[in-house]
């Protein structure tokens, strides 16, 4: 009977194209608006590294101003750490894997004279970065801790930079000039676009990853500039780059990989002991406030999904409800217009449940058509958002298969819900009254 009902549904939809189009359009508008905002929220709140997001922890220690909390509302410790903590905590090597990092930038001068020098974003990091965050490699690999300790001038390029400077060929073993220094290329990343860019949400949670990766401590060696957010609660003591590094200014991020609750507890103990030692040295004037957050907790803590995006999503759901209420009215009109046919079907043997299924399938078909048109509208909506906000959201405005299926499911469920009352009314039409009056 399902195919029969399907055939009847499409005949009914074709029979009254204007009414059907209005219903499809109403659902499409609601779905289009909802899917546009859901997609943005979904990509903002997606788990960027689901396979190990519960083992990776962002490290926070409270080295802030004794008189003012870094975050007055939540009393959370600062969202970055100082150079001193980055150096000390990394050197301690207390976690099974750990990475400290910062954002910087410099000029790349390609050997090929036809390619002009250009500015590139640098991720200063330590060797565990690549294995901790499961970065895919096209050629070569990352570096070992010895390269960090020895401040070796090694570099990992992204595919984009390798394509630009070396035409996409295997450049491992070659050298590249960056920030006036020569670096030996040891690896080229394949396309890697974590959304959000979880490892550093302080500096553009939805930006693309930096273009090259070099050992963290080269920042000090080459006095590489600070890029990204830097916050200080007191001025550096003294002048110059080294004084700035020794200051209480925060510009660095740290992640550790901890594979069990025991490891996590041990690391917290280690942090507490470290802070106690620092307090004895006259630093860390605030109460002990150390924190480890796994990836999703850190995304939540940093409000990667912004409140206005959430509000937009709920408003679009309200709009969908308004569209569905319109659809209820239109379906009611359509089914009441079919009263004589419904009466006849009842008279010649259809039960109420037969008619219920028939009309719910018709509602679902209208919903699916609305869903398909809605997905087109959502695609246009996302393009519109991209053109309005530009590069800031370009990684958030693509409709993937999950969202397309979600859109169709929402359309299907919504239309079935919208069809319940009109269908119930249709099933309760008295056949006798319709047969005589036709």
């Amino acid at each position, binding site marked *: *009977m399902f195919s*029969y009902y399907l055939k009847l549904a499409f*005949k009914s939809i074709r*029979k009254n194209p204007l009414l059907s189009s209005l219903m499809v359009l109403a659902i499409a508008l609601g779905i289009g608006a909802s899917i546009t905002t859901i997609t943005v929220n979904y990509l903002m709140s997606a788990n960027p590294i689901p396979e190990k997001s519960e083992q990776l922890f962002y490290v926070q220690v409270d080295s802030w101003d004794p008189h003012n909390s870094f975050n007055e509302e939540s009393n959370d410790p600062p969202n970055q750490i100082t150079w001193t903590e980055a150096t000390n905590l990394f050197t301690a090597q207390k976690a099974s894997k750990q990475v400290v990092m910062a954002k910087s930038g410099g000029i790349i001068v390609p050997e090929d004279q036809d390619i002009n020098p250009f500015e590139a974003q640098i991720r200063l990091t330590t060797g565990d970065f690549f294995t901790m965050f499961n970065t895919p490699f096209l050629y070569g690999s990352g570096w070992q801790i010895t390269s960090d300790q020895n401040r070796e001038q090694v570099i990992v390029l992204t595919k984009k930079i390798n394509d630009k400077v070396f035409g996409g060929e295997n450049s491992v073993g070659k050298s590249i000039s960056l920030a006036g220094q020569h670096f030996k290329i040891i690896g080229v990343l394949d396309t890697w676009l974590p959304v959000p860019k979880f490892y550093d949400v302080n500096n553009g949670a939805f930006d693309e990853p930096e273009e090259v990766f070099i050992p963290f401590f080269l920042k000090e060696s080459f006095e590489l500039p600070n890029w990204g957010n830097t916050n200080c609660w007191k001025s550096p003591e003294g002048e110059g780059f080294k004084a700035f590094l020794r200051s209480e200014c925060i510009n660095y991020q740290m992640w550790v990989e901890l594979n069990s609750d025991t490891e996590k507890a041990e690391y917290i103990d280690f942090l507490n002991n470290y802070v106690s030692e620092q307090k004895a040295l006259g630093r860390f004037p605030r109460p002990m406030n150390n924190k480890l957050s796994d990836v999703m907790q850190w995304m939540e803590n940093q409000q990667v999904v912004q409140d206005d995006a959430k509000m937009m999503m709920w408003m679009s759901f309200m709009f969908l409800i308004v569209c569905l209420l319109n659809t209820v009215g239109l379906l009611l009109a359509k089914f009441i217009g079919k009263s*004589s*046919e419904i009466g*006849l*079907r*009842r*008279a*010649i*043997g*259809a*039960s*109420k*449940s*037969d008619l219920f299924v028939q009309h719910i399938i018709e509602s679902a078909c209208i919903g699916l058509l609305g869903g398909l048109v809605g997905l087109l509208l959502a695609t246009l909506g996302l393009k519109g958002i991209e053109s309005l906000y530009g590069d800031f959201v370009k990684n958030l405005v693509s409709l993937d298969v999950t969202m397309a299926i979600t859109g169709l499911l929402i359309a299907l469920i919504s239309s079935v819900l919208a069809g319940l009352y009109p269908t119930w009314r249709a099933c309760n039409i*008295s*056949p*006798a009254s319709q*047969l*005589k009056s*036709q």
Partner: protein
Amino acid sequence: MLTMTNVKKVFRTDLVETHALRDFNLQVDEGEFVAVTGPSGSGKTTFLNIAGMLETFNGGTYQLDGKDVSHLNDNQRSRLRNEKIGFIFQSYNLIPDLNLFDNVDVPLRYRGFDAKTRKQRIEESLEIVGLANRMKHLPAQLSGGQQQRVAIARALAGKPRFLLADEPTGNLDSEMAQSVMELLKNINKSGTTIVMVTHDPLLAKQATRNIFVKDGQVSEIEDVIPMHVANA
């Protein structure tokens, strides 16, 4: 086959209470062709609707094929209608966007027959009414008489034991009406019991028995043609 005893039907609104049937008593035997006549508002159509289980009633008993149908639920009534009763209406009640084949197919779908059986029955019944060559036509492409023949084919396709016709010739001219009447008589001769509501005394006289309904009650019963003669 059909026995109504003291059946009552009252239509109520906030202001008015209308007694459509009052102690309605009637027995129709298997193979009969009963014509029900009476003035407008006498309760003929209400009787037919109750007989076809399209409406419930407020009192009395109704037995169809020896089974009391008063307490059947909606699904049971639908199944019984589908299996035992065929309907023919004054205004044909064909579904305009379905072709003749699909119109006749409707009751068979609800009966759960497979495609092969349905096709066979549809072709047979359209053959009986003389429209087998127009299966793909839409109702609007046929005359009134032809449309009523399609409605008869639809009623026959399920091979019902009982055919209820509500003024089946009411919208037809006399020639067409007589042709439809001949078709009904042939169907009756093949063993199907028919109850027909009509205003036309000439058509009523062609049935085996006439029932005159007045004020919601059977007021007169007249055997027009003895059954054994009619079916000879």
